[in-house]
Structure formats: C-alpha cells, structure tokens
C-alpha cells in the first residue's frame, strides 16, 4: 500500500506541472499566469508536505484540520470567480465601445468613399 504523502505529492506535482506547462506555452495572459503559478506552488508544496495543513489547522483551532484546506480553497475559488466577473465587465465595456467605434469609423469611411466617387 502506498503512502498518503506519495499520493498527495503525485497529485500536487501533476497539477503544478500542468499549470506551468500551460503558462510556459503562452496560453495564459500575464496576471492570470501569476495567479495560476502561485496556485501551482501551493499544490506542489501541499502535495509534498500534506501535514502542513494539519499543523496550521491545529494552530488556528480548527477541530478537523483538513476542513481548513477545503475552506481556504473555497474562499480562493470565490475570489477568483469575483475577479473573473470584474474582468468580464471590463471587457464588456471595451467590446461595446469598440463596436460603437467600428460603426462610427465605417460611417466615416462610407462618407469619404461617397464624396470621392464622382471624381473617380
């Protein structure tokens, strides 16, 4: 039977490697890459040293220490989703302004083409 530490190490290393692979291949934009590299480090360290969670849990007075990792993970996911929606809203503004700008430039182009056509 293999040890718990080996299983968690494998999971941590695989997830961290996958994230680093995606970041290195340029699939992720700068600020997101930083977030996910941090996440990869956490996966890697917690995978190698799963008992750290137990020690923190005891120190913080959590009666069932593994719940600390679950709660912290959940909080981080909520923060990430919130940041995603903020970014999505920023992009929505940018898209709407660009659509308007394209329409105004198309109109200007149409006007210029119309004014030049009699002399062509």
């Amino acid at each position, binding site marked *: 039977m293999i040890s718990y530490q080996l299983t968690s190490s494998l999971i941590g290393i695989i997830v961290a490697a996958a994230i680093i692979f995606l970041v290195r291949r340029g699939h992720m934009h700068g600020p997101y890459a930083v977030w996910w590299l941090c996440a990869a480090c956490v996966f890697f360290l917690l995978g190698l040293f799963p008992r750290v969670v137990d020690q923190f849990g005891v120190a913080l007075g959590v009666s069932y220490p593994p719940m600390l990792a679950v709660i912290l993970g959940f909080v981080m996911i909520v923060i990430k989703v919130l940041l995603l929606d903020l970014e999505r809203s920023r992009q929505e503004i940018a898209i*709407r302004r660009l*659509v*308007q700008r394209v329409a*105004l430039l*198309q*109109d200007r182009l149409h006007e210029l083409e119309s004014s030049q056509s009699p002399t062509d």
Partner: protein
Amino acid sequence: MLDSPASPRCAVVIPAFNEETTIAAVIDRVHQSCNAYVIVVDDASQDQTIAEARRAGARVICLPQRLGAWGAIQTGLRYALKNDYAIAITMDADGQHDPGFIPALLQPIEQNQAEVTIGAAPARVSNARRLAWRWFRMLTGLKIEDITSGFRAYNRSAMRIMIKSAASLLDYQDVGVLLMLRNGGQRIIEVPVAMQARANGKSRVFSSWLIVAKYMAHTSLLALARMNRPQSKHYLSKSERL
C-alpha cells in the same frame, strides 16, 4: 443658444432594431416637424430597416453587433458630440413619440433652464409600472415622474457625461442614465408630451414576467449602488475619446 427649434445644430438620434415598418414614417414626421439632422443607429437589424431609413433621408450608422437601445443611443450621442451638434434628441423608432413636441423639448435647454429635458407621459403606463417607478424614485431620490421615457433632449454638457465609459455598461436609458446625469450636476426638466401606442409590438423591457423580474432586480441594485455617489473631480473631468 440655438437660432430656432429647427436649427440644423440639433440632431435627432433614433435607435432602431427591426423597425422596417415604422422607421420611414418616423423620419418623415421628424423632417416635417423641424429641420434637425436625423441619425438612425441601426442595432444590427435583420430586416430592411437600414434601406428604409436611408430612403427616408436619414444618416444611418450601422452597429456590427447588437448593443441594445442604450448602446445604440450612446453611439448616436458620440456622433452628435463629435460633429458639433449643440443638442441631441433621442426618440424611439416605433412611432410612439410625436416629433411635434421636439420644439417643446428644446425650449428649456435653449433658455438655459436645463441640460436635459424629458418628454413625459406618465399616464400612458400601467399601474404596475407606475408602482415600479415609485419604487425606483424611493431608492434613488430622483424627482422624475417618467423614468423610462426615451423621448429626451441633451445639451453638449449632458452628452459628454452620457458618452463616458461608465455609461457603456448600462442597458437602458432610464435609472442608471438619470443617476449619472444627476451625479454629474445636470439639471433635468420634464416636459409633458402626448405619446402614441406603439405602432409595432410592445415594450421589450416589460415583455414577460421573467424579464420584468430581472429588470427590477438589476435596476434596483443599480439604484442602490449609485444613489448617493458623490460628485468627484475625477468623475467630472475624466476625458473620454469620442
């Protein structure tokens, strides 16, 4: 100050989405009422709205993707501001608004009594919608009777506020727009007008109970978020590209 209500320095902005049956008649009625420049902002219609509007003599700006009525109006306001129009009037493409009231909308702005005028016809709506308006007035402290009227006139100062990026996330020309204007120090006056029943179809905002519920939740949140927003220097001075 404008020379007359029929001044060419006045632009009429009409957002249109699939309004081929009414758009030409609306443009004709505007031309008969005043000599304002008519700008139709086509919101990616799938019918003959663009051709009909051009045939009726309007300038047509075509959005490549649907932005909704407010997004189309904001495009028209950006055009009007960039092309030095002193006043922009917004009205619907469905024949609901009577262009004969345009001079009445212009008058308070010409006389420097307001930066924005709203053509108000609160009697046209149902009791349920009147209740919704009252709710929004209570949340925001706005003293405006007809919150959702799209028949409005804006001077350049109001237009500058309306083209800001912060206004680009709004979906309707109602509470969010009014709060931005109020927080920007604009004076708003309501002018009583008569409104026709829509010639084609019904309100898109109040078309189903689910949409009404979403609209109420969305607008109530917007009202709560912006009700007491202080006027900041940044808010007033931030320049926006046209």
